[in-house]
C-alpha cells in the first residue's frame, strides 16, 4: 500500500523492488504474500510476447466501491500483479480523536464504516467503558446486541447487492435495498438517524426503546427471513453465479491468518474465528448461535458464509428480543469522562471482521492517542494474492467479495 | 396520371419473371468508381487502419459488381469471407503490431519510381490488349438464371443425384488448404508451442 502519487501510472515501476531473480528455479517456488512486484523490464517496449498492460482501475470506477485505486499489471487479461493506492478518503479520524473529549469523539467513529455505523459505535463505547472500568447495564447490552445485529444484516445486504451488481446480476441490488430499508426505519425510529446512527453512549444507550420496538423488530424478523431465501434463489444455484465465484479469489487459511485477515473472509477459508464467541463482549455470551465457516476460501464460500451469518443474526436478534431484561439503560458514568492513565485495546466482530480500538489515556479528558484497527484495511491486503493469475473480471468480483468500505480503509 | 407513377404501376407487379435487370449503367459506373478510388486509397493512406477501411469499401463495391453480373452467391461469399472475415483478421493484426511508428515513417520504398513505371507499363499493356482484342469479347452478355444460381454452384461443387461434380475434388483440396493455413497460422503465432 502506498500513498497516492497522482503520477502517471507508468511510473509505478520503481515503487517495488524486483524479485525476478531465482524465478526460473522451479524447485524453490516463492510466494510473495501481499507483496507487489509490478516491475517490468522496459516500460516503453511492447512485445507481443509480453505485452504487459498497466491499467489504472479507479479511483473513479464503478466497481471499486468508493475511491480505491488499483493498479493492475496485465498480461492480456490475466492479472500479473496489483497495487492498491489508498488514502483518497483520508480524514484523519485518529488525529481528530486526540483533540476531542471522549464523548465528543463518539459520533466520529460512525463515519468510518458508514455501512455498519452501529458496530463502530459499539466498539468505541465498549473500549472506553473498559478503560473507565464501568460496565453497561444488562438492558443496554441487549439493546446494543439487537441494533448491532440488525446493522450486520444491513451491511451484508448492502454487500450482497453491490457484489452481485459487480458480477453483473443487477436485480439483487434492488431486493436487498428494499429490505435494508426496513432496518433503517427501525434505526430512524430509535435514534433519529438512518445511517450514522450514533446509537450508543459511553456507559449504555442514550435512548430507551420506543413503544412497539420489540414488535417491530419481531415483524422485521418474520419479514426478512423469506427475503434472504429469495436472494439465495436468485443466486446460490445459479450456474453463471457459481462459475463466476467458485474457485475465484481463493485464499488459504494459512495465508489469511498470515495477512491478519478477519471476518467472513477468514471464516470462508475454514477458520472458525469469531470474536463474538472467542472473546464475547456485550451480551453475546448469553445467546445461542453458530459460526458459519466455508471450506475452499473462494468467493462462493464467502458468499455462503455471509448469507448464513445473516440467518444467524436473525437467531440472535430473536433470542435477544424475547429475553430483553428491564432496567436502566445507562450505567453510572461520571459527567466528565476522565479515564485513569493507561491504555486499552478492545475489539469486536464488526460485519467486516475484527474492529479494534486502541486507546492511550493520559488521564485527561481527551485520548492521548487513539488507533483503530479497521477490518477493511487489513482485509484489503489479501487482494493481491487473491487475484494473481485471475482475469480482470475476477478482480472486480474479488474486490466486491472482500467487502471493503473506503471510509474505514482510509479513515 | 404521370408517367413515373404509371411505370411504377406497371413495372412488373405480378410479373413472375422478375428478371428485368435492376442494374443500370449508372450503378456500374458508380460502383466501379468507388472500387477504383478506394483501391487507390488503400495503397496511398499512411494510416493502415484507413487503408483497411478503404479496402472494405472496395470489397463491398466489388460485391455489388458481382450482383450486377448475376453472381449473387459469389457476392454473398465476398461479403462473408472478405468483409466479415479476412478484414477483421487484418484489423486484429494491425492492432497487434503497433502502427504509431509506421505512421511517422516513409510510406514508399526507395524503388517506388521503378515499381510505378512497371505498373504503368502493365496497365498500358492491358488497355492495349483490350483495344487490340476487342473482337474477342462479344458485346452480348448472357443472362444467367439468378434464382437458381446457388443451386447450380452447389451442383458443380458437390455433384447431383449421386454423381460427383466437376469440382468436388478441388473443393475437398481447398478445404485441406484452409486447414493447413489455419494450423500454420496458429503455430506461427503461438508464443510457445
Amino acid at each position, binding site marked *: 500500500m502506498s500513498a497516492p502519487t497522482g503520477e502517471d501510472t507508468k511510473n509505478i515501476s520503481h515503487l517495488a523492488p524486483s524479485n525476478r531473480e531465482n524465478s526460473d528455479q522451479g524447485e524453490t517456488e516463492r510466494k510473495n504474500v501481499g507483496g507487489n512486484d509490478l516491475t517490468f523490464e522496459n516500460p516503453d517496449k511492447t512485445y507481443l510476447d509480453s505485452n504487459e498492460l498497466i*491499467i489504472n482501475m479507479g479511483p473513479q*470506477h*464503478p*466497481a471499486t466501491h468508493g475511491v480505491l485505486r488499483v493498479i493492475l499489471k496485465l498480461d492480456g*487479461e490475466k492479472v500479473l500483479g496489483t497495487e492498491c493506492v489508498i488514502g483518497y478518503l483520508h480524514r484523519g479520524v485518529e488525529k481528530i480523536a486526540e483533540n476531542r473529549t471522549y464523548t465528543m469523539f463518539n459520533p466520529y467513529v460512525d463515519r468510518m464504516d458508514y455501512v455498519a455505523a452501529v458496530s463502530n459505535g459499539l466498539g468505541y463505547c465498549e473500549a472506553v467503558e473498559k478503560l473507565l472500568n464501568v460496565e453497561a447495564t444488562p438492558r443496554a447490552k441487549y439493546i446494543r446486541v439487537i441494533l448491532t445485529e440488525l446493522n450486520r444484516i444491513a451491511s451484508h445486504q448492502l454487500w450482497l447487492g453491490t457484489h*452481485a451488481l459487480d*458480477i*453483473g*446480476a*443487477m*436485480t439483487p441490488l*434492488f*431486493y436487498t435495498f*428494499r429490505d435494508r430499508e426496513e432496518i433503517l426505519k427501525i434505526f430512524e425510529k430509535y435514534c433519529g438517524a438512518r445511517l450514522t446512527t450514533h446509537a450508543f453512549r459511553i456507559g449504555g444507550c442514550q435512548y430507551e426503546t420506543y413503544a412497539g420496538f420489540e414488535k417491530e423488530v419481531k415483524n422485521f424478523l418474520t419479514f426478512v427471513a423469506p427475503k434472504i431465501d429469495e436472494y439465495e434463489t*436468485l*443466486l446460490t444455484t*445459479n450456474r*453463471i*453465479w457459481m*462459475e*463466476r465465484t467458485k474457485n475465484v479469489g481463493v485464499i488459504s487459511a494459512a495465508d489469511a491468518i498470515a495477512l491478519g485477515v478477519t471476518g467472513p473472509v477468514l471464516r470462508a477459508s475454514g477458520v472458525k474465528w469469531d470474536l463474538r464467541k472467542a472473546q464475547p463482549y456485550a451480551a453475546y455470551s448469553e445467546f445461542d448461535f453458530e459460526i458459519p465457516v466455508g471450506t475452499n476460501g473462494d468467493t462462493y464460500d464467502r458468499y455462503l458464509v455471509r448469507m448464513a451469518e445473516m440467518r444467524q443474526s436473525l437467531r440472535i436478534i430473536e433470542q435477544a428480543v424475547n429475553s430483553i431484561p428491564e432496567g436502566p439503560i445507562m450505567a453510572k458514568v461520571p459527567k466528565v469522562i476522565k479515564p485513569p492513565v493507561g491504555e486499552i485495546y478492545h475489539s469486536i466482530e464488526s460485519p467486516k471482521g475484527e474492529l479494534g480500538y486502541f486507546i492511550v489515556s493520559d488521564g485527561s479528558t481527551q485520548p492521548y492517542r487513539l488507533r483503530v484497527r479497521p477490518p477493511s484495511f487489513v482485509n484489503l491486503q489479501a487482494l493481491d494474492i487473491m487475484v494473481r493469475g485471475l*482475469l*480482470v*473480471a475476477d478482480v*472486480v468480483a474479488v474486490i466486491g467479495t472482500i467487502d471493503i468500505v473506503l471510509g474505514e480503509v482510509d479513515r | *396520371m404521370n408517367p*413515373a407513377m404509371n411505370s*411504377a*404501376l406497371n*413495372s*412488373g*407487379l*405480378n*410479373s*413472375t419473371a*422478375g428478371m428485368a435487370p*435492376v442494374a443500370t449503367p449508372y450503378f456500374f459506373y458508380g460502383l466501379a468508381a468507388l472500387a477504383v478510388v478506394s483501391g487507390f486509397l488503400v495503397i496511398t493512406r499512411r*494510416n493502415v*487502419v*484507413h487503408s483497411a*477501411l478503404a479496402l*472494405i469499401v472496395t470489397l463491398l463495391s466489388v460485391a455489388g459488381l458481382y450482383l450486377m453480373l448475376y453472381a*449473387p*452467391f459469389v*457476392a*454473398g*461469399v465476398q*461479403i*462473408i469471407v472478405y*468483409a*466479415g*472475415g479476412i*478484414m477483421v483478421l487484418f*484489423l*486484429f493484426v*494491425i*492492432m497487434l503490431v503497433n502502427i504509431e511508428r509506421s505512421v511517422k515513417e516513409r510510406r514508399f520504398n526507395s524503388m517506388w519510381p521503378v515499381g510505378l513505371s512497371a505498373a504503368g507499363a502493365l496497365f498500358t499493356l492491358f488497355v492495349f490488349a483490350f483495344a487490340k482484342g476487342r473482337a474477342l469479347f462479344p458485346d452480348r452478355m448472357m443472362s444467367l438464371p439468378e434464382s437458381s*444460381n*446457388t*443451386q447450380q454452384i452447389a451442383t458443380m461443387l458437390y455433384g447431383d443425384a449421386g454423381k460427383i461434380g466437376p469440382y468436388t475434388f478441388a473443393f475437398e483440396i481447398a478445404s485441406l488448404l484452409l486447414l493447413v493455413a489455419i494450423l500454420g497460422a496458429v503455430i506461427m503465432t503461438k508464443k510457445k508451442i
Partner: protein
Amino acid sequence: MPNMIAIWMPNFIMSYLGSTVTPGEAGSQFWALIYVLIIFAGVSVAVMSMNWLERKALAHFQIRLGPMRVGPHGLLQPIADALKLMLKEDIIPSEADQFVFWVAPLIGLLAAFTVYTVIPFGPSQAVSDMNIGILFMLGVSSLGVLGVVVAGWASNSHYPLIGALRSSAQMVSYEVAMGLAVVSAILMTSLNEKGTGTLSMIGIVRAQEQQGIWFIFKFFPLGLIAFIVFAIAMIAETNRAPFDMAEAESELTAGYHTEYSGLRWSLFMLAEYAAMIAVSSIAVTLWLGGWMRPFVRLLHGPSWDFIFSLFPGLTFLGLAAIAFVGVLRMPAHSFFKIQKIGLEAFGGLLGFIALMLLVIAIAGRSQDPSIGSRLNESIGYIYWFLLKVAVFMYLFIWYRATWPRYRFDQLMRVGWKVLLPISLAVLIVTAIVGVLVA
C-alpha cells in the same frame, strides 16, 4: 385531380397488395424505396419503444417503477432521451483517430439496418427476396464487428480497446456456432420432392408452410436444439446480458464505446437494438415459422382464420384497456391532470387502432381478393411475425434482469467447447435423418 386520386389510390394500393412477390423481386423501385423508408422509420420507432419497454420491464423486475415523469408512465421518455442525446456535445477525444472515430458507429448502424432488406414480414412484405437471403444476412450482420473493432481502436484508450477486442472475438466466435445452427435449419428446407433447399428467407418460411411444421419442432428435438444454440449465440452476437462482456460496466466502464457521447453513442445503441430485432427476426424466420400463425395445421378453416385474424385487434384492445386501468389507478390529484389526459389520449389512440383492426378483420374475412381481405391478410402476417419477435425482445430483457455476467474465458469456452460441437452434431444428425426420411 382529387377524383383521379380517388380512383387511382385503391388501384395503386391494390396493385401492391395484390402482388405475391416482394417489390425487390418485382423490380418496383418505388415500392422498394417506400419499404426501405417504412422499415427505417419502423425500426427506429421500435428501438425507441424498446428502450422504454426495457426500462419499464427491467424496473418492474427489480421492484421499482422506472421512468414515470416524462409523460404518463414515462411514455415520452424515449423521445426526451433522443432529444437529449441529439443536443449533447459530441466529444471526440483529441488523441483519437478523428475520421475513424467518426465513421465507426455508422458502420455498425449500416450493418444493422441493411439486414432488414431481406427480413420477410410476410410473403410479400419484404424489401426484396434475395435467393441468398440468409447468407446475405449473416454476412452483413458480421460487418457489425468492424464497427466495434474500429471504434475501440480509434478511441486510443485502454478500456475501449480491450472492450473492442473482447466483443469482436466474441462475435467472431459465436458466428461459427450460429452459422452451423442456421445451416441445419436450411438443410431442413431441402426436404421436399425436388430435394433442393433454399437460402431465401421467404423460401425458408414457405418450406415450413409446405411441410406444415415449424422447424423448431422438426425432427424433434433436433430443430429445438439448433434453435437453442442459435438463441444463445444470438445473445452473444448482440453483446447482451449475460454475454455483455464488451460493455461490462463493472470491469471496463463501458467497453468499446467508453469514449463516445451524445448522438454518436446513441447510434451505437440504435445499432445494438436494431441488431437485436434483426437476429430475433432470423430466429423467427428460420425456426418459428416466420409470419405463419400458430396451429395452421391443427386449426384450419375459414372460421379459425377469422378467429385468429381478430388477434391483432384484440391485442391493441388489451393494451388500450391497460392504459385505461392506468388512468383509473392514478391518484386523484390535480398534479396528475395532464398525465391523466395524456394517458387517456394514448389509450384512446390504441383503442382506435384496435377498432380499425377489428373492422378490417371483420370486413376482410371473405376470401375474395378485395382490399379488405388482402389488408387483413397482410396485417395478420405482420402481426404474428412481430409478436414472435416481441417474445424474443422480452426474453432479452428477462435475461438481463436475471443472470449475472459470464467471464470472458467462460464465454469463449461456452462458444467453442459447448455450442460449436452441439451445432455440428445437430447438423450431422439432421443430415443423416434427412437422408433417411427422404
